[in-house]
């Protein structure tokens, strides 16, 4: 008999660290460059006439390539929203205090809704129909993060 206790080895924790180098594509590249100049660009489909944002090349419904760039307002209307009391960090839930406010926003001139974080109001004030405007990162980083968040547009929005 050995005094040594038998060790239980039930699990093997194996992290995976993959790094991918995705090509952004010319459409999203132009969109990101636009954000750096405080412009939000969308694409208009010549088939259905719908304006989508963020821009992409192919309209799934029409099976056409979209080629007409449209500059959208940086002001829009909240069409759907959720108040998050948690965050998902690497798949794990963490409490979010204060809660995070996420909205689907119809920018003036667009048909598709853009997801954005809304700040500058209480969670219970976030409602459909609320007019919001983009708040830009200054100085610009030439990244998606240049469109930092949205806040209530206030009077005249």
């Amino acid at each position: 008999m050995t005094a040594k206790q038998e060790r239980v080895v039930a699990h093997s924790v194996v992290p995976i660290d993959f790094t991918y180098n995705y090509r952004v594509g010319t459409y999203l590249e132009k969109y990101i460059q636009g954000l750096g100049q405080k412009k939000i660009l969308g694409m208009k489909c010549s088939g259905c006439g719908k304006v989508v944002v963020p821009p992409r090349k192919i309209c799934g419904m029409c099976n056409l390539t979209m080629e007409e760039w449209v500059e959208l307002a940086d002001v829009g209307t909240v069409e759907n929203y959720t108040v998050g009391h948690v965050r998902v960090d690497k798949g794990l839930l963490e409490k979010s205090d204060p809660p995070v406010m996420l909205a689907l926003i119809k920018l003036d001139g667009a048909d598709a809704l853009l997801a954005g974080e809304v700040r500058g109001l209480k969670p219970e004030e976030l409602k459909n129909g609320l007019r919001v405007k983009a708040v830009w990162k200054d100085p610009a980083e030439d990244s998606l993060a240049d469109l930092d968040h949205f806040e209530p547009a206030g009077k005249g929005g």
Partner: protein
Amino acid sequence: MEKQVAVVAQAQTRHAADIGMPKERMLFELVKGLFDDLGITRDDIGTFVICSNDFQAGRTISNVFEDTPIGAYMKDETKVEADGLWAAMYAAMRIMSGNYDTALVVANSLGGSEFRPYLVMDYQLNPTYDRQLGLLNELSTAALQARSYMDRYGMTETQMDRIAAKLLRNAARNPYALQSKADATPEDIAASEYLYEPLRKLHCYPFTDGACAVLLASADRAKELTDSPVWIKGMSSSIDSYYLGERELFGSRSSRLAAERAYKMAGIKQPADQIDVAEVSAPFVHQEPIITEALGLFPEGSGGSVAERGLSEIDGAMPVCPSGGATGAHPFSAAGLIRIAECYRQLTGQAGEAQVADASTAVAHGQDGFCAQHNAVMVLSSEEG
């Protein structure tokens, strides 16, 4: 369908937050049990179709350690991702090709103990845009979908709580379920914490380890293997836009189109009258009305009143998820195959306390993607022909 294919057997694990054994043993015991019950061996299986997922398994070619425990070693074998309902469709087609008389479909994942389901779902996000922004995840998108339906059709949070409570009660009648409560009330659901409003913890699926196996056979072989085959009458799948901002989240166009095609194959003209029981994949309970309405089982936007009136209860006019559905257990990949397995149990009178009286025709639904982007529908019946 021109060439008949039947479900002749099903097996499931007792789904768990931690199944307590390696995947290989789980699969071996599951499939060996099914073989022993039928008195067959792996030699009786013509083709094997696995549904598992590389991201869920944490290794490429996720089936590489799955084919041996299920008996597929050196046999005709292939793998499908997305969800087990697609694997079953593929397996049925392999039988319809005339090359095989039997097909074993096996689907599994260990989302309770091995991987993080929300992280795997994050890897479905567009990598150059949504994944960079970090706003969308499985929960926040589901919450937006719930809000979209509730705003459009006036379903209240309490009515949504009723759906969740029904599912927890049904799950208490399902020996395979992981999460259940025999006397669950809407108040129990409302007492769970908000994650992303309006979704509370008990509106969302539990992280689950589990597996399911379903054996399909040609008409002649099916009658040799069982006295009560369940016939596949129609099947189809369809995919909606990835972009949430372009979808009408309050409905499910792709479910509707898949159902229309499956019903046409099955000769179903009035689904609400002709279907006796439905098993739909709704990992978030608000998806139950969205999907069952797209499947033509209830009028558009009626989710709130259906819940109030108990129409989708086991003894209701159109029972939905007598198994407890995804609220009872939701192993990724296996989820849609479990829906078929549960329809099989219903149509063969094996559903025990969850049995729907006189059920002869059922619809099973599977999904994948954010807010049920990708949907598959299968119509099953105990009546041949």
